[in-house]
């Protein structure tokens, strides 16, 4: 009975993680097209959601392990998986509240590592794997994608310099829609699998499924739907930071950065050096801004870099604390679920204070949590003017009322 309860809880939490994964990464594909108007916000997320669902259903060959080489596979137990997932969910929601893109896979690894450290001590974690699989890729991904996007952007502008913008806008918007769709599809194939893998491993551990078999049909459909619904819900806070916060994106620049994102993601997935989709897309947008010679908000970029640095320890801390409870049988698991629900609720309520939806996602470049809008002006670039006072003050007045 206890086992069955824990099993059902883990599956539910895995699907919740999948949902947060979807809305956290929606912006990776769609921030560019939404910012330039190549796709309307609603259209963009519906398209991305369908492609994510399709991608998840196309790629069902799950990894045999979820330890990622960070520690021994034997250390992975059902409570550890539960604690790791809780850590990843809380981290994903916190960064979403702050409007910061961060890698969902790093969050999951962080959560699991934290849980393993609590269960089996710090010595059981292979520190070098953290360097080679987390730290190095987090530096390489934005660099490679950034350089690719910067060159592509320069070329896009210099080739079409004499082309009337009516013509070039339309063309680049089509290009952007195509590359964004590829990113969404690739995301479905890579990240949908993660949750399927977790659920399948848990089912195998509970002897409900023979060892070495692939995910069952309901697992594939549930995981695909969870990530698709997550993507559809938009994660508009992150979408705003990526589409507006880092740099103002013009259409040719958006097309170039989309090309760099999809090329880098596909190259990394097929040539043996895994890079996080989030880091790649952010790097492309940054690089495209540099390539155009636009005013990049380095303060936003450094805040993101800080969040990436904290992803592993942050999710690990929550995962570790969660592991203390997850190990205590049914009462512990129930307590953990109550705490998770409270955490989700608090974050949701906080996010309502400065709500960002599909309707206002491109209105401003700031994602506010508690602070009032700080008007910033860039006198040398009229495109980067501060948001209109009316829009900036509206949420403030609301919270005062």
């Amino acid at each position, binding site marked *: 009975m206890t086992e069955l309860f824990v099993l059902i809880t883990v599956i539910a939490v895995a699907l919740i993680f999948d949902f947060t994964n979807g809305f956290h990464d929606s912006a990776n594909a769609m921030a560019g097209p939404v910012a330039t108007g190549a796709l309307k916000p609603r259209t963009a997320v519906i398209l991305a959601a369908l492609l994510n669902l399709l991608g998840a259903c196309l790629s069902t060959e799950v990894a045999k392990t979820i330890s990622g080489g960070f520690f021994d596979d034997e250390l992975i137990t059902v409570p550890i998986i539960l604690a790791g997932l809780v850590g990843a969910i809380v981290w994903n929601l916190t960064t979403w509240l702050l409007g910061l893109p961060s890698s969902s896979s790093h969050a999951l690894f962080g959560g699991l590592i934290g849980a393993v450290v609590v269960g089996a001590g710090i010595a059981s974690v292979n520190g070098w794997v953290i360097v080679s699989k987390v730290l190095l890729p987090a530096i390489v991904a934005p660099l490679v994608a950034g350089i690719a996007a910067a060159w*592509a952007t320069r070329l896009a502008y210099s*080739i079409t310099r004499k082309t*009337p913008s009516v013509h070039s806008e339309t*063309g680049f918007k089509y290009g952007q829609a*195509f590359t964004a769709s590829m990113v969404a599809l690739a995301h479905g194939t890579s990240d949908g699998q993660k949750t399927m893998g977790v659920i399948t491993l848990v089912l195998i551990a509970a002897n409900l499924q023979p060892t070495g078999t692939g995910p069952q049909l309901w697992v594939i459909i549930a995981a695909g739907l969870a990530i698709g619904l997550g993507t559809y819900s938009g994660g508009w806070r992150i979408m705003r930071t990526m589409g507006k916060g880092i740099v103002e994106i013009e259409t040719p620049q958006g097309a170039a950065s989309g090309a760099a994102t999809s090329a880098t993601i596909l190259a990394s997935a097929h040539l043996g050096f895994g890079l996080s989709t989030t880091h790649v897309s952010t790097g492309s947008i940054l690089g495209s801004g540099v390539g155009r010679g636009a005013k990049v908000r380095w303060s936003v970029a450094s805040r993101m870099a800080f969040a990436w640095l904290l992803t592993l320890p942050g999710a690990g801390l929550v995962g570790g604390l969660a592991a203390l409870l997850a190990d205590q049988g049914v009462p512990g698991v129930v307590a953990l679920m109550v705490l998770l629900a409270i955490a989700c609720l608090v974050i949701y309520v906080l996010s309502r204070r400065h709500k960002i939806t599909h309707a206002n996602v491109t209105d401003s470049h700031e994602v506010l949590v508690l602070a009032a809008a700080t008007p910033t002006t860039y006198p040398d670039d009229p495109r980067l003017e501060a948001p209109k006072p009316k829009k900036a003050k509206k949420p403030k007045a609301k919270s005062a009322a």
Partner: protein
Amino acid sequence: MHIDWAALGIVAVVSITTSVIFTILLASGIRLVSAAKIKSNEGGYSPMILSMAYVVLGLAGLLVLFGIYLIIPRFH
């Protein structure tokens, strides 16, 4: 401790080259289509420019198709 520097280098080179090639094709296609449109607005007809535009955009389209081929695991 093992870091696959070769794979890292290949990923970097391939990513940058492909992005640049795709963008060149797309931007050139856009420029050619626009040139052909301008010409036809002026009453002229330029089959040469138009067919070049289609070739270039077709190549960009092929790159997209290759990308989709790579994404879908059942194809390889």
